[in-house]
Structure formats: C-alpha cells, structure tokens
C-alpha cells in the first residue's frame, strides 16, 4: 500500500477489517500517514473526546430554579372548604333575595299598591337574576 491508496481509504471513511490491518502496517512505517489517520479519521470517529466539554458551575441548578420559579409565580390553590362555603353563601343570598321578590309580588297583588308595580319589583328581580347568574358562573368555574 502506498500513501495515496492509504489516504483514499481513509477519505472513504469505513475501512473493513482487512483494510484496517493494511492501514496499520502502512502507518507503522509512514509517520505522515499516521498523522493523517489521527487527524482525519480518529478525530472524527472519536469526536466525543475531542469536542470541548465543560462542566457547569456548582450553582447552576440553583440559578435555574430561581430563574424558573421567579418567572412563574406560584398560583394560590383555593381550599375546597372555601369553595363550598362561598357557594353555600351565594345560595343563601340568592334565596333571601328571591323570597323578598316573592313577598313583594304577593303584597302587590293583594293590596293594590300601584306604586311598586313599575319600579321596585323590576330592580329586585334584576338583583335576583344577577345573583343567580353569579352563582351559576361561580359553580361552573369551580367544577
């Protein structure tokens, strides 16, 4: 094997076992081809050991945690008992207003008080409806 043949095999990249022993023989007597092999073949095939590998500083994990957890503030988890109590309060409040509306309607129908017919019931009904909507949306959000 001469140097040109040697380099041709190296350039092709994948010498088989027979070729490999011939390459070794040639390298034993040719320092230039030995260097060529090291530089062109070995460096690439064993790139893992030649590529620059740097270890991170000891505080990297802490700095990553700080960076991540400061950027994303922790969301407060509302306890279940608070949710239930709030929902119950909303129900009671709604019932109170609803019964008030019922009573005022009953009073209007029996005592011929035309004063309340146009204004008072409308406001109260609106409040009752609003409360009901708030309650329903609260319940759906917390499902």
């Amino acid at each position, binding site marked *: *094997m*001469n*140097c*040109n*043949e040697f*380099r041709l095999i*190296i*350039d092709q*990249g994948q010498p088989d076992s027979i070729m490999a022993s011939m390459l070794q023989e040639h390298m*034993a007597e*040719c*320092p*230039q*081809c*030995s*260097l*060529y*092999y*090291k*530089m*062109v*073949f070995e*460096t*690439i095939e064993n*790139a*893992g*050991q*030649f*590529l*620059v*590998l*740097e*270890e*991170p*500083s000891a505080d*990297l*994990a802490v*700095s*990553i*945690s700080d*960076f*991540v*957890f400061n*950027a*994303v503030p*922790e*969301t407060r988890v509302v306890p279940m008992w608070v949710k239930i109590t709030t929902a119950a309060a909303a129900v009671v409040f709604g019932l109170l207003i609803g019964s008030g509306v019922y009573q005022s309607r009953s009073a209007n129908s029996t005592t011929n008080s035309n004063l309340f017919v146009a204004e008072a019931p409308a406001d109260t009904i609106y409040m009752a409806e609003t409360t009901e909507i708030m309650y329903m949306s609260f319940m759906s959000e917390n499902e």
Partner: protein
Amino acid sequence: MDVASLRKGDRKAFQDLIDTTHRDVYRLAFRFTSNADDARDISQEVYLEAFRNIHSFREDANIKTWLYRITVNRSLNLIKKNKSKFISVSIDDSEASAFQISAPTTHEADAVVENKELKKILQSALNSIPENQRTAFLLFNHDGLSYAEIAEIMSLSLSAVESLIFRSKANLRKELAGFYQKNYGGAQVLKNSAVK
C-alpha cells in the same frame, strides 16, 4: 422521574428534574455555543420553557429527549440571532497560523498534534459544515444518544438522521484532509507514495 407530578406543575418534582438533568442540558448547550455564559442562559431558558409547557408533555415520551429538543432549538436560535458572534471561521484562517504545526519526520509524529489542538481543529471544521449535519453530529457524540433519540430530538426519520451523520462525517473528513494538505504539503505525501 414522576411525570404525573411534573405535569401537575409540582415544583418539587420539577426541582428534582432540574437537579438530575441540568448538567447534560448545559453540556449540550455548550457543545453548540462553545460559550459558558450562553450555555448557562440557554439552560435557564430551556427549563423555563419546559416548566411553562410541561402539561403538553406526553407521559410516554422521554423527558430528557424533550429537554434536549428544547436545548437544540434554543441553541440554534441563539446562533442565528448572533451570527456575527458565531460566524463560521475556516480552519485555515483560525487555526493554521495559531498552531504552527511542523511536518512530522519521525514515527512519533502523531504526537506532534496535541489533543488540545485537534479539539480546535475539529471545532472549526464543525463550523464549516451545514447546520443540520452539525446538529446531528453533535447529538451523536453527546451522552451516547441513539439514532432513534436523535431522530426524535430533530423531528426526523431514522434514515434521515443516518444520512445526516454519514454526510457530516464525510464533510468533516474533507475539511480535515484539506487542513492536513495545506499544513503538511500534499507534494511530500505524493513523493513518498511514489517511493513505496
């Protein structure tokens, strides 16, 4: 790794993930950027992105592969944004004058080129090959990643990865052969070959 807890946004589980994987993420980022500050910044951004999107992580997937994918994307984005900083430098421009490697004359010649120098030569050669080939090659030489894992990280088929790695090696050989030729002189090799 408790993926279910991670997906729920459990901070302790995420802290465990950082503790167990940050070294590999940093090293990979460093492989791409060759800069400690950039690698550190990328590592932080990788985990922030991961934390924000952890709910979209599939439980059957490999979380390390997922982190590597984010790392590669972040690294390539940084390189694209700072092209002037990461601009490709040919081996001949950057290394030949710095090394002053003398042509080997003895059988111990292969000791002439130190590993430190080979690292620089290889790094420069890597900068001169196409980005996707470089990415595949760097992943192939990182943390014992398999072709399948590289395919997942790069969102490519297995055969595409094999082809990229094959071509990257061929191009690197070409670059390094060119460097050798320029610094040791092809004429001398031809002369020797005529004798043998």
